[in-house]
């Protein structure tokens, strides 16, 4: 009976229902976009805040970038041991966090690798390939890091595991690697292949895949995404190089590893203590030349981004809420006028045996059916076309849809419940 009445109602009120449907669809799209935006904004600002709030960040650079100075340093006996000691002290001190990270490409055995993974793909670079021992290798994006980077940025694996402390020791020939989420269609956990890194070949084993959209703040980029990267651990090598290739590999690795970021509490005593500690480490390791860049780009970017986010948030909130409110008012007015007209219709049903509860149910279904259709349309638009919103956003919108239909229906129902229904068919005495 109710469904039959709904069919008749929709057929009779085609135009008004269509206007209402479009208005509601627009309303849900605005609300969905708004919720999604706020969620994203909160996620971004909370993420940034959690990472950088109350911290002071310095970039630590070695002083051997000049050709002659470098040559002089690497020609000294024991230079590699000094580099190793220096990194070891930096990496294991309890006085501050030391983030060693760099994005040096690697050469990977290529069995038809998609272009998106190749080094410089976004800059339009062509696939660089080279033959090593009769195998074709391609230069792909790679990111190297120490354990503290993993912990500091909260990088987690959705499949497999991340590195253990043991994985940062260069005891074994096979290197355990983590892959960005985009690699999930290319490799599987446990797969092994060969790479060439700083001219040395390694066997690698896939131990895990990072969560989609995993990112960190690197090289002035506040959102450096790792989805298309092969992640290598910065391993410490206690053994002496066994060949010239091995020595060059360890040398390149350690020079990359000692150029990192220092995170300390943002108070003068902590900063002073950190500087004294680094000085002591450098002296102990006989590293004569190093420098700091204080208030590094990360931190400036972070501060700037936070300000923009807060300003954006207020502006967007105002625009979205006022648009949504205006939309809502129009919807409620249309629904009110439409349903008010229906009161005499409900009175006829009442005379013929309907109950008031039954009539309210009928009214709710009329309102909810249009709202549900609009919600589903907005769901398709947001999910498939605009690619906005997650399950949580859609669930909130569905709750809004149900709540709105109930609230509007209850407001209208008060007329049915608390006044003589026969008033609505104008019976004169």
């Amino acid at each position: 009976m109710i469904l039959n009445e709904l069919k008749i109602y929709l057929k009779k009120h085609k135009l008004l229902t269509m206007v209402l449907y479009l208005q509601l669809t627009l309303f849900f799209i605005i609300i969905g976009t708004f919720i999604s935006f706020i969620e994203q904004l909160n996620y971004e600002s909370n993420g940034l805040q959690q990472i950088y709030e109350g911290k002071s960040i310095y970039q630590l650079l070695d002083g051997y970038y000049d050709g002659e100075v470098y040559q002089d340093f690497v020609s000294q006996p024991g230079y590699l041991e000094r580099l190793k000691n220096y990194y070891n002290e930096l990496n294991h001190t309890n006085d501050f966090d030391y983030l060693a990270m760099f994005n040096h490409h690697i050469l990977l055995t290529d069995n038809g690798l998609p272009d998106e993974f190749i080094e410089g793909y976004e800059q339009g670079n062509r696939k660089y390939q080279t033959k090593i021992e009769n195998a074709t290798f391609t230069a792909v994006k790679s990111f190297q890091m120490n354990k503290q980077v993993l912990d500091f940025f909260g990088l987690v694996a959705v499949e497999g595991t991340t590195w253990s402390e043991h994985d940062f020791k260069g005891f074994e020939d096979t290197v355990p690697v983590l892959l960005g989420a985009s690699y999930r269609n290319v490799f599987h956990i446990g797969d092994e292949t060969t790479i060439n890194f700083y001219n040395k070949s390694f066997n690698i084993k896939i131990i895990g895949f990072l969560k989609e959209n995993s990112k960190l703040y690197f090289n002035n980029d506040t959102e450096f995404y790792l989805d298309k990267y092969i992640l290598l651990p910065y391993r410490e090598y206690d053994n002496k190089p066994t060949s010239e290739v091995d020595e060059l590999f360890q040398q390149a690795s350690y020079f990359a590893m000692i150029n990192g970021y220092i995170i300390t509490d943002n108070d003068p005593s902590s900063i002073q203590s950190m500087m004294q500690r680094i000085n002591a480490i450098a002296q102990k390791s006989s590293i004569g030349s190093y420098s700091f860049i204080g208030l590094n780009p990360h931190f400036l970017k972070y501060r700037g981004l936070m300000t923009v986010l807060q300003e954006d948030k207020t502006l967007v909130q105002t625009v979205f809420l006022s648009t949504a409110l205006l939309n809502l008012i129009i919807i409620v007015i249309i629904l009110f006028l439409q349903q008010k007209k229906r009161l005499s219709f409900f009175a006829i049903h009442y005379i013929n045996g309907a109950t008031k509860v039954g009539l309210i149910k009928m009214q709710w279904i009329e309102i909810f059916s249009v709202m549900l259709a609009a919600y589903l349309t907005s769901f398709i638009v947001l999910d498939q076309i605009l690619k906005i919103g997650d399950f949580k956003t859609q669930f909130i919108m569905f709750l809004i849809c149900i709540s709105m239909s109930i609230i509007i229906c209850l407001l209208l129902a008060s007329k049915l419940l608390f006044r003589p229904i026969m008033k609505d068919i104008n019976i004169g005495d």
Partner: protein
Amino acid sequence: MIELAGIKKRFIDGKQYTNILENVNIQIHQGESIAIKGKSGCGKSTLLNILAGLLPFEEGDMLFNGTNISRFTAKQLAEYRRNHVAYITQKFHLLDDRNVFDNIALPLQYLRIPRGEIKSRIEEVLHDLDMESHIKKGISSLSGGERQRVAIARAIVKKPSILLADEPTGSLDEVTEESILRIFNALHQNGMTMVIVTHDDTVSSHCQHIYELHHKRLHLVS
């Protein structure tokens, strides 16, 4: 069949309560036809609404076949309206979003009568009212007299115990009025109990008893 005893009904007018009916008593027997007359605003339609189970009242009892329906729940009252009462309103109040057939089908749908039986009952009642050719017509295409016949058809199709009519000829011309009265006469002769609220002496003259609502009370006139 129906008995009203000491019925009192009041309405709120602004902040004040106004009694519209006081100590109304009437007994309506099976097959009787009764006319209720009175000035405009005296409470005739209110009385009819009470008889139809549409309006609660403050005092008194209303008995239907010996059962006191003044203590009925909303659901029981809906069943009373559904099964026993037919109500023809002054302005017919047909549903203009559907055709003649679907308008007449409405009370039968509430009675959950199978679709096949609904169809045969509607065809039968429209045949009796000489409206067979209008079965698929939209309400807006009907004349005043035709609309009134559809309203009567909707009322009697469920074979009610009592037919209540509020100024059934109030908005009709003389010729149409006559034809409607002939229908009412035929219904009465077939044993239908009828209560008709009217101003019109011609209409009331067709009823067995005439009551007048005066000073909030019901008086038997003839």
